[in-house]
């Protein structure tokens, strides 16, 4: 019987020599080595989405940018994660998100513990130079325990993925396309009338912004509790 061997590779990330196993992504390896690459749609334990484009990095020898979340490491690769050019693109992308819907931090229930807000702070987005769209969007408060506020949604689809992949309910999905895309419950019914929603709250706790929240009054109640995800992922891997 032959023993499966996993090939190991060495590469450079931001000038630092690092080693990894074949098949690991740039993002995984960077995080293992405490190199920060910003992400919004990516979440450990959920499938790859590749939609926020914040994790784009430069690879020496290619004029193109690569999304670190979905690009596997290769032997001898030289990765730059934080050049001036990358910072500029990332800032523009975050500004695009702010301009797309009504992200009014001051009156948002997630103010202070929102990933979009902290991302903007981290990247130094102190103003938005794109015109705001101010779309008229609804808030779904039909559910007794949760609230879906489309004004704060960045369409990262973490909720869609956790609902389908981890909870197995597939209550959440996306309707429409392009700028008109919107998160829906079942076949675009009020959340409170959903027959498939198990009320597990996983979607709420993976949501990076104030789009999905538990109904409550205290600030502390709005903190996202995400510990279940690595635990469930580990359980699932052990089951294999």
């Amino acid at each position, binding site marked *: 019987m032959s023993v499966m061997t996993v090939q190991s590779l060495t590469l450079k990330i931001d000038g630092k020599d690092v080693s990894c196993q074949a098949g690991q992504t740039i993002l995984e390896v960077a995080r293992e080595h405490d190199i920060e690459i910003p992400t919004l749609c990516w979440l450990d334990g959920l499938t790859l989405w590749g939609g926020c484009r914040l994790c784009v990095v430069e690879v020496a020898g290619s004029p193109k940018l690569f999304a670190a979340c979905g690009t596997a490491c290769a032997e001898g690769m030289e990765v730059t994660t934080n050049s001036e050019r990358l910072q500029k693109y990332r800032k523009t992308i975050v500004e695009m998100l702010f301009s797309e819907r009504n992200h009014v931090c001051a009156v948002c229930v997630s103010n202070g513990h929102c990933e979009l807000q902290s991302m903007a702070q981290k990247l130094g987005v102190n103003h938005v130079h794109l015109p705001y769209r101010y779309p008229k969007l609804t808030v779904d408060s039909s559910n007794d325990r949760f609230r879906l506020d489309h004004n704060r949604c960045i369409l990262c689809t973490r909720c869609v993925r956790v609902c389908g992949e981890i909870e197995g309910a597939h209550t959440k999905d996306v309707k429409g396309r392009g700028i008109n*895309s919107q998160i829906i419950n079942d076949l675009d019914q009020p959340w409170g009338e959903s027959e498939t929603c198990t009320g597990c709250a996983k979607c709420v706790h993976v949501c990076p912004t104030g789009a999905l929240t538990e109904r409550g009054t205290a600030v502390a109640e709005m903190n996202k509790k995400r510990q279940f995800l690595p635990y469930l992922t580990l359980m699932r891997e052990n089951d294999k």
Partner: protein
Amino acid sequence: MTPEELQTLAARGQEKFAHYKHVLNVCMESGCVSSRSDTVADALDKEIAKRGAKEQICIKRVGCLCSCAQGPMVSQDDGKVLYKEVKAEDAGAILDAVGSKPVSRLQMPADHPFFTKQLRVVREHAGKFDPEDLEDSIRVGAYHGLMKVLTQMTPAEVIAEITTSGLRGRGGAGFPTGLKWSTVAKAGNPTKYIVCNGDEGDPGAFMDRSVMEGDPHRVLEGMAIAAYAVGAQKGVIYVRAEYPLAVKRLTRAINQATRQELLGANILGTKFGFTVEIRLGAGAFVCGEETALLASIEGRRGLPRPRPPFPANSGLYNCPTLINNVETFANIAPIINKGGAWFSKIGTAKSKGTKLFALTGKIVNTGLIEVPMGISLREIIFDMGGGIPDGRKFKAVQTGGPSGGCIPEKHLDIPVDYESLASVGSIMGSGGMIVMDDTSNMVDVARFFMDFCASESCGKCVPCRVGTYHMHEILRRINDGEGTSADLMLLRELCDTVKTTSLCGLGQTAPNPVLSTLRYFEQEYLDLISRAEATRAAAGDGHSKKAAGTTGLEVTL
């Protein structure tokens, strides 16, 4: 069916038509059918029956006769005489003229460069046989390439032949076909798929539709040869539902071929088996992107996903999948029949063979043309296309649809090949060619294409979803006389971000129409902006976002 039977069938087809003194071909593709070529064919049939000439003259319902804007087209004796804009009432006159002087009021010069400068490889038989008749298709050579491959060649030899030919993907990006095939052939999985991309979505493009409607068996043959070469068992043709006639003809062709064992478990009596099914696209442009197309076939939302893994390694149902465009598959049979070396003699050093173009817009001769790679844009537009109508001046030609760019007069002498078109800021694309005259407003052209991209963006990645929206808004503002110079700066910045950071080809190429018009027609943007600024200054309100019309006066209702 055995190889011998195929040859017998071909001979029988020859015989079937040999005794006719004359053949009248009526175009039955979407363009001509929409101007009622079906009634013309019926009228000709009736008239022949009335005259008792059924054994002398044959009426055939055939594929495209090229001059689409002047349909219904009728061709006598394989293009010796061509008639345009034929009506059912003309049946008698056309039949009277058979064997004598053609009807001059309907006649088109068959020796016009529009026809003579074409080089037909993909469409070598189109317009000369009935695509709904398997016997007639086999008569002109259908499935002979497949027979040759199955009886005389190994899969490796087939791939070598395609590699020698230098054929590159006709979907737009121009990836070497031989290399793609060998990657799929080397992939380890025993289950593999062949996918034909017939989701032609560029505004103004109809090349693939014409191939599917005019010669469906050739597409199936190309797919079967590919399946043999890479070791696939199943094929899927993804056609947009807006092409009902193509779907009908392909379905019919699949049924005919399956009945005759040209598709199925034991093709031509060999152990090789291959089946094909059709999937309909529901009209999303992004489904022409290969990973979105695969998701759509699997029954999921048509969204692209990051590559790698490439479909060649992990495609349909996670199996190795070969995806080629309709026109690419239609190039396979002639390469096998005549050899890769023959094919590689056509075209330029890096772009081999011919290319189909849908010539549309402000041009005298609109229609479908097949030209050798390396021909200049000037030859296409001025010699073949007959130049610009109404004595107007040429301004630009748009190639590559919403992913392409506008090419001005000064670059008309570049050869048409993948690299040259890219060097002037456009792309080959799938083959749409829209000619514009000096009445065209280039800012509006850019706005039109951006409107298309924004409404076709799937919404998965942020730069494409939000960036195309903002770019369209800016272009609309500039075009409506509400633009500012800051808008122009922002537009350039957004072009760069969307192009560089988008997930798939749609977003990565969406800024191209803007970038190319900015490159060649920047003055038009500047003129519109300075006029808008002057208007605002005259209105005494430099900050008002709303331009107050040309009079500079706000009207209060």
